[in-house]
């Protein structure tokens, strides 16, 4: 009795209700219980977990005098060097993945403060310390070298004399253990 067999098969089919959901339309953050972060309307930054602010978080002591600050073109020069550095990093195929989905608005501000503080151009550093800022980024020595090359390029483009470039690097180089994870 082929007819009743076909009927039975039909009855066994699951009920087709709606077409499958479009994954792009799903609020996955909500689905997985992830808290949504919102940018600060004034600074444009995302909030970070609370931490103790301390200029020592910059990880290096500042240069005395104003020679280094002048070599870097003062605060304006440092700001455009840092902007260029972040632009280079997010485009650099060697390390772009590490910067993907990071808060580069905050990074531009804190990196500016850090370099401004170290070269003695009149800033205080308000960011996190190097160890906790780079935790779980999975950075390697090769990533650090890539970042140093990008910094060198940004400084060169902004006509920072080579000796002054190296003097800044001399204060950053001892941080390698904190910013390199594996």
């Amino acid at each position, binding site marked *: 009795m082929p007819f009743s067999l076909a009927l039975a098969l039909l009855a066994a089919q699951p009920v087709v209700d709606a077409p499958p959901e479009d994954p792009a339309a799903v609020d*996955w953050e909500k689905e997985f219980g992830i808290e949504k972060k919102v940018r600060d309307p004034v600074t*444009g930054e995302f909030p970070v977990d609370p931490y103790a602010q301390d200029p020592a978080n910059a990880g290096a002591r500042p240069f005395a005098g104003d020679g280094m600050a002048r070599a870097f073109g003062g605060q304006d020069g440092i700001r455009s060097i840092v*902007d260029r550095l972040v632009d280079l990093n997010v485009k650099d195929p*060697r390390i772009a993945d590490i910067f993907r*989905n990071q808060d580069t*608005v905050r990074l*531009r501000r804190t990196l500016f403060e850090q370099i401004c503080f170290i070269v003695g151009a009149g800033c205080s550093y308000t960011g996190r310390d190097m160890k906790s800022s780079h935790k779980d980024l999975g950075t*390697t020595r090769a990533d650090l070298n890539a970042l140093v090359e990008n910094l060198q390029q940004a400084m060169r483009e902004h006509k920072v004399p080579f000796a002054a470039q190296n003097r800044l690097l*001399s204060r950053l180089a001892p941080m390698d253990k904190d910013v390199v994870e594996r």
Partner: protein
Amino acid sequence: MPAHLAHKAPDPISPRQRQVGRACRSSRSLAPFAAIAALALTSAAHAEPLMDGGKLVLTNGISTVEGASGGGLATWATIAGMETDRGIGISAHVTGIELADYGWQSHGLSVGIRDRVELSWARQNFDTRNVGAALGLGKGFRFNQDIFGAKLRLVGDTVYGSPWLPQISVGVQHKRSLDGAIVKAVGAAAADGTDFTASATKLVLSKSVLINATARLTNANQFGLLGFGGPNQTGRTVQFEGSLAWMLTPRLVVGGEYRTRPSNLAIAREDDAHDLFVAWAVTRNATLTAAYADVGSVATFDGQRGGLVSLQFAF
């Protein structure tokens, strides 16, 4: 809003997702769905390349006349090749020296393993030209030697870490003269020998200067080309190698080196050697070195100085 804040940044993600995105470089989506898929695939899909050329240019040094990485004359604490602590690098070089009465050609290969261990080989060919006839060896007689080296980085880093802690390495260089009968005839005690080196190298960034100091235990005569030991001194003595280099740009270095040497043979005095060099990283992988070198007296012919050119490829 200040200009530097006007850049668009996507939503932040948790550190865990961050690591997943990092470990699997092809994962570009932020959705947790993709992150979980990536997590599942990570171990299978993610194989890190052993060669990504991650070292800073010139921090591998150039190839010395003995094949180990360093300056031209002095073995440094550096490890050959362009790889960092996660890769295996290689380099190859060829060097030519024109001296007053002699010609030198050397070439070699080296491997740098995880910026920790260096294995090297070099062949030296020393052309005696007219001196060969004067010494009764025949015009254009060549002394040849193979050098097998191994170097281990113990602590420190040339560029990073404490400015007071240099990169420190120890090494051995086993040298085998290919002219055993002749070097013994000139008075050498042996046709092969082994040098031991300990080197400390640091790039002092605050001064843009690279400093190297090496102690070498050796009984080699003219690097070993004239054998090992002799009537004056059979055993090894401690010799010193120093280098001072000034970085002009990330790719251009000028400097000088000094190397003391024993004088073991009775028939011919041996002098200290020194050089002045320019090293230029033409590309990330090719370094061209030109130097003025002075090795003093060689086989009774004094004033052996001249030009050195060396080309190194490193990956």
